[in-house]
């Protein structure tokens, strides 16, 4: 897959503008670290990162931002949104920041980030529990959660259960509360998760990090390894955690690992 130069569709059918919710946490003393942009997966909004990760990143001197993809969280409605529109949202927010940003995508948001990286030279890319889609993803989801998954096949919403998203360490009430806040991606985007063109290579050759959990009940270890393999790296693992690493009981470990990696990798 090569970077395409003639982009007729993007020129002639530009993605329409929409209001985008961006939550941010600013460090008290800026140390010149690059801004982070967190991209939530399908159903999630910027709130998922505003819960713990934004403040924590800011406390470690990273200006931190999270966007809600169109149709999610507090962003404007977009019932017909495509993957391209979601990637457009990410690039629009990233380019609005005052410095080259690090893109951090979670779940299907990691796929959105992979597409955004082909259209914006990020400082670095971080994929957290990446859902890169394909028919295998559907098979796995159907096996684990047939009632929540089947309607999505026919354009209905995908309902993830709290057992898929969180470990047992997270109190049940919190898990149910988070699950109740989930919205949905557009039916088109859900379909594109199954069948989509592979993302073009990342422009500007950014350093990449892949983070996940072997006990994730949405992304099986094989899918995690495969996603990491595309970037020639091995995944960083956090055993015992559920799919939503940023909300699970031990949310601090993965974000600290990501920030340590950024501190080390971007200083050279």
């Amino acid at each position, binding site marked *: 897959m090569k970077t395409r*130069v003639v982009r007729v569709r993007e020129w002639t059918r530009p993605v329409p503008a929409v209001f985008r919710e961006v939550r941010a946490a600013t460090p008290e003393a800026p140390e010149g670290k690059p801004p982070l942009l967190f991209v939530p997966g399908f159903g999630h909004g910027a709130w998922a990162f505003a819960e713990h990760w934004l403040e924590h990143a800011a406390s470690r001197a990273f200006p931190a931002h999270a966007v809600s993809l169109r149709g999610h969280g507090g962003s404007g409605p977009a019932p017909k949104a495509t993957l391209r529109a979601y990637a457009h949202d990410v690039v629009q927010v990233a380019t609005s920041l005052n410095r080259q940003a690090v893109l951090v995508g979670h779940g299907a948001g990691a796929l959105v980030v992979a597409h955004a990286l082909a259209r914006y030279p990020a400082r670095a890319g971080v994929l957290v529990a990446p859902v890169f889609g394909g028919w295998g993803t559907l098979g796995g989801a159907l096996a684990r959660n047939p009632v929540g998954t089947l309607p999505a096949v026919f354009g209905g919403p995908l309902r993830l259960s709290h057992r898929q998203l969180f470990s047992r360490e997270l109190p049940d009430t919190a898990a149910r509360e988070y699950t109740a806040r989930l919205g949905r991606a557009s039916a088109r985007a859900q379909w594109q998760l199954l069948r989509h063109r592979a993302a073009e290579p990342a422009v500007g050759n950014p350093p990449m990090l892949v983070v996940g959990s072997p006990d994730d009940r949405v992304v099986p270890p094989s899918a995690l390894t495969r996603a990491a393999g595309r970037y020639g790296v091995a995944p960083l693992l956090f055993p015992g955690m559920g799919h939503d690493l940023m909300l699970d009981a031990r949310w601090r470990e993965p974000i600290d690992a990501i920030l340590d990696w950024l501190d080390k990798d971007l200083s050279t």
Partner: protein
Amino acid sequence: MSTFSDQESNDPGATLWRDGRPVYDRAGTVCVIGAGASGLTAIKNLKEYGFGVDCYERETGVGGAWNWRHDRSPVYASTHLVSSRPLSEYPDFPMPDNWPDYPHHGQLLSYLEHYADHFDLRPHIWFGTEVVRVEPADGDRWDVTTRSTGGYGAERTSRYSGVVVANGHNWAPKMPTYEGLDEFRGRVIHASAYKDATQVRGKKVLVVGAGNTGCDIAVESGQQAAKTWHSTRRGYWYAPKYAFGRPADQVNDSLAPYRLPLRLRQWLFHRVLKLTVGDLTRFGLPKPDHRVFETHPIVNSHLVYQLGHGSITPVPDIGRFRRNSVTLVDGQEIEPDLVVFATGYLPRFEFLAPELLGTDASGRPALYLNAFPRRHPTLAVAGLLQPDSGLFPLVHWQSVLIARWLRLRESAPERARAFAARVDAEAGNRWHSAKMKESTRHWFEIGHIDYLRVLQRTLDELEVAA
């Protein structure tokens, strides 16, 4: 980045000499001349490919032509893009999607300033410094002599491993000559000196030239002046900014994937113009003597409208000037107070010996892809293009190609040789499928799709690890 003074104090032994003057060795660093839209993307892409970059900018800010504060900026208060936003932005740094389809020049400047800050380009730029000479040195390297803008201070020469010339081509006015122009008592200006409508208010104005600038000024004058004549040499195709409710360039480009033959595209475009703009000879304009795509596209919806209001009078070419009047080629005599020559600009590379770019007697350089001269593999020109779209996407890919090429020369010299041979063979070719009307205006005319398709092939061929 190390500075010049570091070089001087820490390593005096590295200093080279040229004609008895010291030359500061900048090793593998590449020099970019100009910090406008082309220079900025050249710095950014060279940086991305791991090069050290020094950029010299004669002004004190970025933005080049798009910065209205600059002496050489051709923009006037009402300048808007004539290509729509998706066809005018850097492909890896889109403009905000809530901007209008055709942004204002002030928005373009803030976009370029934001680009420079976002990618941290300013530390690479030496502001207020102009380039006096660029001369070849041993081993395909270049000696670049600079001084403070305006000729203050001493000259300083530094040796670079490559030079990217991005000094723009819309700043040296091309003034036509006419018999009797000297004795004409009215005011005569070039469009580059036109800044806003106060200059024409209440006057009798003759606007010469049907480029996009000429049409814009004619329209403003039509609204503000007491009388406006618009003189054109031939009939042109005036494309509207919108067709079928969408930016016209997007409508036109939506046919690109079908790769229709040129004649068919021209026929379709003629049909669309006939339906949306209509027959312009009714308004007194001459019938175009060429097919569409054979001259630089003119995008102006207001001109025809003003003709319909009678506030612009179309007139033919100027025959001669007299003391108080202008005689047109059809014998008509008109008496303007102000003549605005919107007759375009000429490229100028006053710091380069003409043979380096293969420049012919008329001033036209011979370049491969309008970027690479023969026999000087480490010299390139960025942004010397007149596209039928925005320039930024093209110059972005052009500068990626320059960065890849400079990298490939180091990493895989045998692959680089094939490319160098093609540069030699094809320098000076035109990159447009239509046959352009002969004029300095069309020296650098390219069809953006034709050109990008060639760039795509060349980029893939020169692929290197960044």
